[in-house]
């Protein structure tokens, strides 16, 4: 089974300052990157967004769900083959466009 990590961005408002899920994850699954970059100033911490970038490494321990103060993290597990099929279809479409 592979994790689908959904973040509710309406609830997760200031991830870089909160950083609880980043800090707790035993598999370093999350990344919190800027959605905007500026000249002359740093990005505001609210312009950062969390993703479960390495979701293929997620064990499903659920610590991120428990630790989130905003209840913004949702973990769903889907069969690997189901996801593999979806990605293979994406790839096939990509190749067809060439």
């Amino acid at each position, binding site marked *: 089974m592979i994790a689908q990590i959904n973040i509710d961005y309406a609830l997760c408002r200031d991830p870089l300052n909160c950083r609880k899920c980043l800090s707790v994850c035993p598999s370093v699954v999350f*990344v919190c*990157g800027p959605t905007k970059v500026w000249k002359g100033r740093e990005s505001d911490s609210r312009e950062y*967004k969390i993703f479960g970038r390495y979701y293929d490494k997620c064990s499903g321990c659920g610590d991120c769900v428990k630790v989130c103060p905003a209840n913004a993290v949702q973990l769903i597990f889907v069969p690997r083959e189901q996801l593999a099929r979806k990605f293979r279809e994406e790839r096939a479409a990509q190749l067809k466009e060439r």
Partner: protein
Amino acid sequence: MCWVCEKYGKGGKWYLNPENYARRLYKIRKEGKEAAGADADPQAAGMGAGVVAELVKARISGDREWENEIKREALEQAYQTHFGQVVTLDEYLQILDTAYPLAKMTCGCRRVQRGMPDEENFTCMGIGPGMYKWERWPETYRGGVEFVTPAEAKEWAMMNHKEGRVQTVDVFGTPYIGGLCQCEYPGCVAVRNRIDYDFKFLLKGHFVAKVDREKCTGCKSCLGRCQFKALNLEVYTSKAYIDLEQCFGCGLCVTACPSGAIQLLERQSMPGLAENW
């Protein structure tokens, strides 16, 4: 010699060639209208992470050809612009005598992967004229930079090595070297992607660490030093074991050994490993 040396080493190791730190090489420009607040891909944050999302998809799909294509295209681009290589502490110290100016910076990878506050995260060393341009790309230099003397930088590098961080050189517009990282698995995106996805944005170093089985006492001092999953204890013989094919030659285990039982050998002197970058 690795392929970078062949092209930019002038007969020696490319990162010890002072020309690759020369100011006239510094020409990298970021594309995009950043002044207006250009969109960035948050999933691409961290060193060399632009194609991770695609790589993970390819991995899950089991399509090796797809995975190889992603890597081939990404690395072709990376080797012309931005990649890294592992170096030893001695080499790192030599570089600190060559490059100027030197400025401590925070680690962007651990910021975005662990949310480490910048004030606790100053482990990168920015070098060269780029350090004067922080106002152009402030996000890169988030948390500011702290200019240091070569003596201060060396002391700091030795402290980082002692604490167990791998030292690397980082290119910003090949062959211009603009950064020196001190990192770990899995906090470093480049190390992580190399180990977990075999994405060769980070090249192995010019050395490999070999255990002298006569001298090894099995004291276990080296255990826990390796950031590349190459070192463990052979329990039955009570000797350290290094997987030479997996070794990046950083030397962290070497300096931890109280018996002088681990030696760094030139990768080129080992025919079975000479092409293993």
